[in-house]
């Protein structure tokens, strides 16, 4: 079922800007650097979580890897193949190996097509076998995501949110991909169903040795699903490392703010926020120096002037901060 061992996904120095304004209303046009020099790697079988708040650029990255959106600069290679330079023929092959699962599968499923049609279409497009083989493949995918056989002749509107997400996952699976890019795949689901889908994805990942780029705003979900974690802020990765390490001992103050703002189901652990936590600045007018400095309790003049480059802060830890936190800083922050 699997292709030979591949080299995984590698992205280097991705950049993507959007221009807003201008046009009829004659407002001054502004350039938003949605993704501003992002690099990471997803090894075969690995799950990398990409987290951050709205507007940080995480979904733009997810889409541009599949060239659902063209990048301004940077390179994307999958299994050694340059995705951005790929010809149409090569891109078609690549897209069989990299599939995407969206937050709301309803918007990506054609309401007039049955589940069978939705699942068989990619197999037909890519000419994967005879009609009978294709039908069997679709049935197998439905069984694999835990849906009963008879759903194949029903339409998307007949299903609950959780069942629809299972259909979305089944459609991603029919081509036997190596990598799944999941863009907030459980964010629209109720907690009880969310856990069902997470467990399903875990099983698939282990059984098929799938790699995941898992985009999410929910640190609890990411902690549960991802080996490694990359935290984004205003178009840049500010910290990256093993998920549990990063969340238990964050070294970038933004990671700490994000973690401490995530509500725990424990009234004894109510959030104590720094008074100036504030809001993220507009990506159209990022502050000079470190983009996080206006919200940071550790900022000094250097942070206001000089953009910190991402570098190795410790073993298995990258970060973009002039004054990364150590265990003792964490303590002072919690007691202040």
């Amino acid at each position, binding site marked *: 079922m699997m292709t030979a061992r591949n080299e995984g996904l590698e992205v280097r120095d991705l950049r993507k800007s959007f221009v807003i304004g201008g046009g009829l209303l004659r407002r001054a046009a502004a350039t938003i650097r949605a993704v501003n020099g992002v690099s990471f790697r997803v090894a075969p079988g690995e799950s990398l979580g990409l987290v951050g708040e709205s507007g940080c650029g995480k979904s733009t990255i997810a889409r541009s890897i599949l060239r659902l959106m063209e990048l301004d600069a940077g390179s994307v290679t999958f299994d050694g193949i340059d995705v951005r330079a790929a010809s149409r023929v090569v891109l078609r092959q690549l897209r069989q190996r990299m599939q995407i699962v969206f937050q709301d599968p309803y918007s990506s499923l054609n309401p007039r097509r049955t589940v069978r049609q939705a699942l068989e279409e990619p197999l037909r497009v890519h000419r994967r076998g005879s009609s009978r083989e294709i039908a069997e493949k679709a049935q197998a995918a439905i069984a694999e995501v835990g849906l009963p056989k008879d759903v194949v002749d029903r339409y998307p509107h007949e299903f609950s*949110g959780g069942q629809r997400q299972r259909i979305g996952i089944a459609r991603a699976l029919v081509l036997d991909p190596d990598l799944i890019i999941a863009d907030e795949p459980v964010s629209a689901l109720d*907690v009880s169903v969310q856990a069902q889908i997470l467990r399903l994805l875990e099983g698939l990942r282990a059984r098929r040795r799938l790699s995941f780029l898992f985009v999410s705003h929910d640190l609890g979900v990411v902690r549960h699903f991802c080996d490694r974690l990359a935290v984004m802020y205003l178009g840049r990765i500010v910290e990256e490392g093993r998920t549990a390490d990063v969340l238990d001992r964050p070294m970038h103050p933004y990671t700490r703010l994000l973690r401490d703002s995530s*509500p725990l189901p424990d009234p004894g652990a109510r959030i104590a926020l720094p008074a100036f*936590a504030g809001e993220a600045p507009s990506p159209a007018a990022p502050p000079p120096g470190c983009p996080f400095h206006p919200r940071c309790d550790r900022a000094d003049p250097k942070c206001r002037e000089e953009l910190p480059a991402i570098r190795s802060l410790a073993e298995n830890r990258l970060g973009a901060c002039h004054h990364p936190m150590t265990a003792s800083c964490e303590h002072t922050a919690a007691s202040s």
Partner: protein
Amino acid sequence: MDQAVAAKEQVAAADAAVLDIRGLRTEFRIGGQWHAAVRDLSLALRANETLAIVGESGSGKSVTALSALRLLPSAGARIAAGAVMFDGRDLTKLSEAEMSDVRGNAIAMIFQEPMTSLNPTMAIGDQIAEAIVIHRGAAWSSARAQALRLLDEVKIPAAATRLDDYPHQFSGGMRQRVMIAMALACRPQVLLADEPTTALDVTIQAQVLRQLAELKRAYGMAVLFITHNLGVVAQIADRVAVMYAGEIVEAASVADLFARPTHPYTAALLRAMPRVDRDAAGLEPIPGGVPALTAMPTGCFFAPRCPLRQASCTAQHPELLRFPNGHEVRCPVVLAEAAR
């Protein structure tokens, strides 16, 4: 909490309920028949208290709030039984004119998406002032001055320069603060908040939650806070009611609920929630889904998904029972176990 305190609290509850929902039953017409979306729901909301209703989609938590405010659609929905007592009157019996005098005045509300409640073509200072003029009969200039004070109070930076800005010029978090300022304009006794932080980023959510807690104290408001997020409940609530399939299945103080989740559904929800502070090897999904309004099981509504299900559970529908630990729980199986 010791028993004396618990007993005292019960007495206080009976005395000081600002909003008292009694035996509410709200129905929707589906395929020509009426089906209950909320049934036999009683809640007493006290001053200076945040009562959280937590539940998943279809639990009836929002329908409860819309029923209390009489904001249900005029066709296809009805309050079939019960009373909503406020200020000595039953809100379900008021005329529409009387009700619109209560709404946004003594009882205010905020919703998940502030853009749908704000007028996009009107400066926010004017929108807040308008509410004060309409409900309180204030002069326009003094209403504008109050609007500025309210925006300051909800911590809109440089509020004086933003009175004449339009809703689209604010970020999502700032819009929700504007909504809160507008809700406070008439010094409400009750604030109904339906998923007010769900659309916000977590760092903004944390700030808005803290602000709501401060304002509750400052105004002595009774806050009914509706959410699907148990983490948010733990952050904001004084008391909690857990809803499932249109009913309260467990109610307790926030400390007790999280220390001793007693109904099998509450316990299962907590086991299904991934936490940011620990590796969740034991994340346990709840099998199946919420039953449709038109296909409620006989007996306990949670029985088809319940790990503790017994034969009796599918035969008879359980009552809400008071437990030795002070919780109200709709589960005789757990009560029998607790008594042993």
